[in-house]
């Protein structure tokens, strides 16, 4: 594994971002809109709720973390799509670059782009809506790490899906976070869900993050131990995602799809 090769993928992403509003604005535009929208919703809920419950950390904090996860996932897929859009597979995979170095390069790109989005969200949520993000305490670090790792895993799987099914499958990728969000209880406790949905929730790492976050908001101490199942699961997801991508890549090399990717299918 040569980090310089992964660095090249990251550098390419920086080149593309530089001077490209079409790439820069989405890094913070949608998440900023989300924070503003949910910021006002939480303010309104605070004003009408008689219980005195503060919706800002419960809902706006959840939105922020979920958007962070989405940006991480899209950070991976967007960097991958750059090779799809520029029909660069033949050039890039006919080099000494290994798929592990390639995937690491996508992860580097995602760290950069998602950090940018996270900072914008933090500034907005803190300055405008008084979200005390660090009020969650040190447990915030595993929260973000689990969501980051799950975003990376899903980004890699989504990239594998597009590599397998062709460029048009890109449209399967964008709704993935929306598809998952009802199951992981971003806005409500898992006990709200019917049992069959809870079964799914228990194998999705973000569920543990949002349950733990709600415990803290409710005044109970945040316990890192409660996050252990989520942390263990996310390691399995990362490993599984890498294996899926490797398997799809090997198939594409066997069938010749890498060299004729625009055909979408060799058969």
């Amino acid at each position: 594994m040569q980090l310089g090769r992964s660095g090249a993928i990251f550098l390419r992403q920086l080149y593309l971002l530089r001077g490209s509003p079409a790439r820069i604005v989405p890094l913070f535009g949608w998440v900023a809109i989300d924070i503003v929208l949910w910021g006002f919703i939480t303010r309104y809920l605070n004003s009408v709720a008689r219980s005195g419950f503060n919706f800002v950390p419960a809902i706006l904090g959840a939105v922020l973390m979920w958007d962070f996860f989405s940006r991480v996932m899209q950070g991976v897929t967007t960097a991958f799509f750059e090779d799809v859009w520029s029909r660069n597979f033949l050039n890039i995979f006919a080099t000494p670059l290994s798929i592990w170095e390639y995937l690491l390069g996508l992860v580097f790109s995602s760290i950069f782009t998602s950090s940018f989005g996270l900072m914008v969200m933090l500034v907005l949520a803190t300055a405008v809506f008084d979200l005390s993000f660090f009020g969650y305490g040190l447990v915030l670090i595993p929260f973000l790490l689990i969501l980051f790792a799950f975003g990376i895993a899903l980004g890699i799987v989504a990239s594998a899906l597009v590599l397998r099914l062709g460029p048009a499958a890109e449209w399967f990728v964008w709704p993935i976070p929306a598809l998952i969000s009802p199951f992981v209880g971003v806005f409500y406790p898992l006990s709200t869900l019917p049992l069959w949905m809870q079964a799914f929730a228990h194998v999705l790492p973000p569920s543990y993050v949002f349950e733990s976050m709600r415990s803290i908001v409710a005044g109970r101490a945040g316990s890192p131990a409660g996050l252990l199942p989520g942390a263990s699961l996310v390691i399995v997801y990362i490993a599984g995602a890498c294996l899926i991508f490797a398997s799809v890549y090997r198939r594409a090399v066997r069938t010749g799809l890498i060299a004729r990717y625009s055909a979408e299918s060799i058969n």
Partner: protein
Amino acid sequence: MASDLSNVLSVAKLTKRYQDTLAVDGIAFHVARNEIVGLLGPNGAGKTTTINMILGVLEPTSGTVLIQGLDLAKHRAEALQHTNFAAVYAPLPGNLTVRQNLRFFGLIYGVAHLEDRIEHLIREFDLERFRDTKCGVLSSGEQTRAGLAKAMLNSPDLLLLDEPTASLDPAIAREVRAKIREFASQTKAGVLWTSHNMYEVQEVCDRVLFLSHGHILLEGDPKTLPGEHGKETLEELFITVAREPLELSQT
């Protein structure tokens, strides 16, 4: 297959089958150092399939590819470190400038003194004016030159060129041919070259392989091969390979 280090490329029993179609059928050939070998044949003969297998982007059904004595199947990264290619159907990403593309690929190939190498190649391929121009807005000839600069980045021991002069005007094409001849003679590199321009092949290649229906039908010196098969020119021989390969396989 024993590795012969006088050859930069040794291909043995290389086969690619797509379900019922046999695209490449057990071919064997080599490219020696300082040698330019022309891989010729009609469309669909298996040239690009062969090149893709040598580049590691297409897995052979069977057979071996040795680059600098390294088995591509077992030592992919090391073998491809010694290889590079340019193909008319694989332009550099159009959304990066010439210099950005060269830096990107240079980092992937781990080129030493990369900035100096990039500047040298930019001068060598007459790309100074386009250094900071996005490849997508270059003319097809300029894109070809940028692709050739990328192909030379790592000073490859094995250079694969798939119709490298197809988009170039005759004057530039002649310059490019001269550069590649110089590259092959002054370094330890070997070149595998495909082209449909038989004049070019005769001028550049030391040896040619005629591929038809996935088989190597003929092999020899492009200057003497037509006469050996009762043909006036290499082009005439090519047309015979394309239309009546059986006639040649029986001679």
